[in-house]
């Protein structure tokens, strides 16, 4: 079919829990995209993931209101905070990293946990092997004030 691109958008959608509330409803609804079909397809594709984990999702939509989606793995910061056991804070109930990273250590994770995170995120990272992916995760940990032991 003559897929004429109309636009793209990137949303953070919780795995298995997409629904018409923000951001999905307004973001898709303003563009006339079929919200319920998106939610149905997204929830089906993420049913085997940890429910509620935030998934960056790139939605490409076409002139006839059809769409495709590319669901990424949750951000490294999500995995790191979870591994470090940081408690959720704030309005959105998310764990908080360091406010002065580099000078402040808020938590620690093990090298084994870093490897597990690297393996989980491998498909979305610009790395050719797990060791390369681990270096990227270590960089994220450092910027968040999380020390690796």
């Amino acid at each position, binding site marked *: *079919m*003559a897929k004429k691109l109309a636009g793209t958008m*990137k949303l953070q959608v919780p795995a298995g829990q997409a629904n018409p509330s923000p951001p999905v409803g307004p973001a898709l*609804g303003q563009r006339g995209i079929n919200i*319920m079909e998106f939610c149905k397809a997204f929830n089906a594709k993420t049913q085997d993931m940890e429910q509620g984990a935030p998934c960056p999702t790139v939605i490409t939509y076409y002139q006839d209101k059809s769409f495709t989606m590319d669901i990424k793995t949750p951000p490294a910061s999500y995995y790191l905070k979870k591994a470090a056991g940081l408690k959720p804070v704030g*309005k959105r109930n998310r764990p908080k990293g360091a406010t002065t990273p580099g000078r402040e250590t808020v938590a620690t994770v093990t090298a084994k946990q870093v490897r597990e995170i690297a393996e989980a995120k491998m498909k979305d990272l610009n790395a050719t092997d797990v060791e390369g992916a681990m270096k990227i995760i270590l960089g994220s940990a450092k910027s968040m004030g999380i020390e690796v032991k």
Partner: protein
Amino acid sequence: MPTFTALTTLEGKAPAEALGEAMEGMEPEPTGIGVFEVEDGSGLWEVGGYFTEAPDEAELALLAAAFGAKPFAVSELPETDWVAKVRRELRPVEAGRFFVYGSHDADKIPEGAEPLLIEAAMAFGTGHHGTTLGCLRALDRLATDGFVSRSVVDVGCGTAVLAMAAARIWEGTMLASDIDPVAVEVAEANLRANGMEGRVECLEATGFDHPALEARAPFDLVFANILKGPLIDLAPDLASRLAPGGHAILSGILNDQADEVIAVYARNGTNLAHREEIGEWTTLTLTKE
């Protein structure tokens, strides 16, 4: 939960995408970011962020200045039933005898129409586009003129709406192929939703490169609603698999591209029988000598 939006425009896709990425680092962070081409030929792109609390307008001003964008317009969206709004917009499409509708409009099928249930979802071909509409109208026109097809293929089928439309009015098993495996899955789901299992065989294939397509050739009707470039590349293969006196319905062609496509197909022995423009898109019906 309130939803705030921050919208701006700037020139060029790459700067727009870069600005969208930069917005991801904002605090409070956006829950969604959109990058959209403004469809007025201006070359402008719209970048927008969705927030559940008021965004930092000073940070937005810095981002706009850094990327050469206009100042962000920040507003709070009114409470809206977005699902109902979308359903109102995804209205049924009438194309000759065919009535293409989503499940929310199942009670609106006119008496005597050929209904096709297609949800606007993961494959192109919902009827809400001039190319699909043009193909359905061309099919309706051929059938009204008394043409009866016994072997139909829809190359680049998307939802398979065209092959299903043919199966609604003619006997036999139609073929539908797409290069995209997701489209093939959607097409098969659409067949089930329409109670048309066994009436259309869906295949994953590039062009005519599939044993089932080879075995069933020649065809007396070929749909190809793709784009100008692939249509021109496909011309020799398509024409050689069309039976003498058979028709090809081609779309995905911008109006100013139609003459070039007609000329290429004429060199391959298929000549223009009808053309229709819907908006910026042209649908061609060609007949093989």
